């Protein structure tokens, strides 16, 4: 292979890499996601969500459901888009020992996916869980404001 071709080839690889990993991504490179890294990012915020797409544009109905639940409770959270990085996508499944996305962490602890969040929301358990970590659900605020009217 001539040097010229070799140069072309490396450039092409670079182009492909750029197309795949750049963009408005939280992780611009294929960073290593090991247990230590997950320990760190799941504890960075009280609520951390691993999802498909981002809260503004969820790329899956289940992820969307979790985003909508969180919106109703008016909570802030960190979100990670697993579609942007295969290491992240597989890594979080292994880390949580949970086969599906989305995955929700509260106070560094795995809480569940869409089904569980939905049931916790319906039963009122989610409000309790949020309270435990010092977050007052917007639904609770609404409820306590209503009697005054």
């Amino acid at each position, binding site marked *: 292979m001539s040097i010229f071709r070799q140069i072309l080839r490396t450039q092409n690889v670079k182009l492909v890499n750029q197309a795949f990993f750049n963009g408005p991504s939280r992780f611009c490179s294929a960073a290593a996601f090991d247990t230590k890294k997950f320990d760190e990012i799941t504890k960075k915020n009280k609520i951390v969500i691993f999802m498909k797409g981002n809260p503004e544009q969820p790329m899956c109905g289940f992820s969307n459901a979790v985003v909508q639940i969180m919106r109703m409770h008016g909570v802030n959270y960190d979100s990670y888009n697993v579609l942007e990085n295969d290491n992240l996508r597989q890594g979080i499944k292994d880390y949580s020992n949970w086969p*599906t996305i989305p995955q929700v962490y509260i106070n560094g602890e795995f809480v*569940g996916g869409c089904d569980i969040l939905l049931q916790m929301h319906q039963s009122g358990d989610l409000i309790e869980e949020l309270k435990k970590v010092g977050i007052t659900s917007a639904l609770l605020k609404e409820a306590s404001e209503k009697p005054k009217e």
Partner: protein
Amino acid sequence: MRRSLGNFWKTVNQRNFFAPTARMQVYTEKHIESRIVEKLENVPFIKAVDQSDGCGGKFHVIVVSEKFQGKPLLQRHRLVNSALTEELKTIHAFSQKTYTPEEWEKEKGN
């Protein structure tokens, strides 16, 4: 230019970007049900519904089992997931409802 484009595709192919990943296994509702029953043994009621329009990638299951007694939701779901370790590698959308026999009786009443 032509050569570089040819090279580009060669690179792409070499890196297997577009190579089909392991062919998707299509599971039936029956298969899913029997895997769960195998694992949980005493299962008074089970229903798996293929919601994928045939591609086999989306399932919903209702499982009633004595084994859920005293277990929080997360543990129950983990139990069901553990019965489907292999299947859940290709089923990308999986939702479940888990009941103890008593809870199921109440649920049916509603």
